[in-house]
């Protein structure tokens, strides 16, 4: 992504998620009691309160549920406009906040099928991004 993303704010749980991104995978917590897949990272399962969870790679495919386009810069780190912030519902269940750097205002639609790309940043971390699937 052409903008200046700061490194992720890390705690014990989200460090695994960040590790996954660095390896270009979406690692999510999978509750080993009830099977619920959760995001963002949390110390317990919001469904069954179990503290047992495994980090598992999940399919990096999903669907656009919404987006906005920033037409003016509202933050000094993000001066290249327009850029979008997009909500993607992963096929694994959770909705993530992300962006489609290659999308255009005319082409991005709610319901678009997308898959993850990973941008390796100079600070040694990676950012989860998405791009549209090729039309069949």
């Amino acid at each position, binding site marked *: 992504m052409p903008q200046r993303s700061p490194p992720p704010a890390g705690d014990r749980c989200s460090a695994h998620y960040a590790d996954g991104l660095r390896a270009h995978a979406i690692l999510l917590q999978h509750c080993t009691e009830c099977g619920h897949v959760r995001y963002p990272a949390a110390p317990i399962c919001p469904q069954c309160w179990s503290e047992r969870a495994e980090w598992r790679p999940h399919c990096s495919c999903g669907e656009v549920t919404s987006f906005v*386009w920033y*037409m003016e810069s*509202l933050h000094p*780190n993000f001066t290249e406009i327009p850029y979008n912030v997009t909500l993607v519902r992963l096929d694994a269940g959770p909705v993530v906040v992300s962006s489609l750097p290659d999308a255009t205002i005319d082409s991005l639609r709610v319901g678009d099928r997308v898959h993850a790309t990973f941008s390796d940043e100079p600070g040694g971390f990676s950012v989860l991004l998405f791009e549209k699937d090729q039309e069949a």
Partner: protein
Amino acid sequence: MSQDSIKRKVAIVGVGMTRQGEHGDTSPLLLGVQALREAMADAGIEDKHQIDGVLGARQYDGTGIDAVVLSRTLGITPPYAGAVDYPTAGFTLHYAAMLIASGACKLVAVVYARNPPGCMTAISGAQEYDLQYGFVNAAAVHGLAWTAHMARYGLTTDVLGRIAVQQREHARRNPLAGWHAPLTLDEYRAAPALIAPLRELDICKVTAGGVALLLASPDMAAGCAKRPVDFLAIGREASHGLERGEHMSFFSVPQIAPRLFQAGGVSQSDIDLMYVYDPTTVSVAAALENFGFCPPGGCEDFIGDGSTIAFDGVLPLNTHGGHLSEGYLVGFTHHVELVRQLRGECGERQVKDAKVALYAGGGGVRAQFYQSASLFARGD
């Protein structure tokens, strides 16, 4: 469910507010004191020591007034001085109403004022949600909701434009409003997007001003100068944040309405006045649908050319201009307006024979979105 302890057991007895807009370097504390003096005069309260509760409101951005500092400034020692953690108008007034309803206080002063930088020019909502993606400003959350809503129901941004235009029409009839310049739908359409699909005209700007409300028990209200405005019911709901919430429930939650109306003993058709906490036009559209004035996706049909929500329309809405065109004091001045409307003091924007008002407040942070709602009725 019973709200017998609230229904007509708490009244707003006095209101005061400064002009909204720029106030030079006047401190928020002074703006708040000015508004409180007006509210005391409005209520006919002469002895400041009758105030036994003071609620301030300090927002996440640090603007606002601290209740303890205000009490100290006023030279009063009320048994109750404080604030709730998310102190926009709905939540703060609920707390005040609960103090009265539970018998803790008889006369609670709620005071809010601010004088932020960027007054009248900077858009509100300065928050950083996720700097990995440049996800900044609260209006972006509203934009996300509107994108999804348009896609689901085939709507356009015109309905938002009609809301902005109508609220400006109201502000033009409100001498205290910050924005009086005329606004047309064509001008709205011609304006560039800021956080697409939202334009700058969809997002309220920060303003300076002060506002005060006095809430009282029935016996205290009976001795006040003006006709009281009674609480009929209060309601709260919340929805999960972005990752789990239904898109329009970012702002209001459909399940709040039946509970609230049942507690108040009224229905949608009884509502003469509606006030919506409107940091963006999307909040208004969402509230109309979620409070059942129209079906999901029906806001465009309901609002039509905008006359439905005009002060002389079917459902007069934000008759003072709202945050969008009057000023952004986080919902408190909405309550000043509804009190003055219910008393019949609003001159050229007066709604005829208004008896019942609905306030729909909202807000939140990324983790969760809150909804507060209140029903008010003209007292005896």
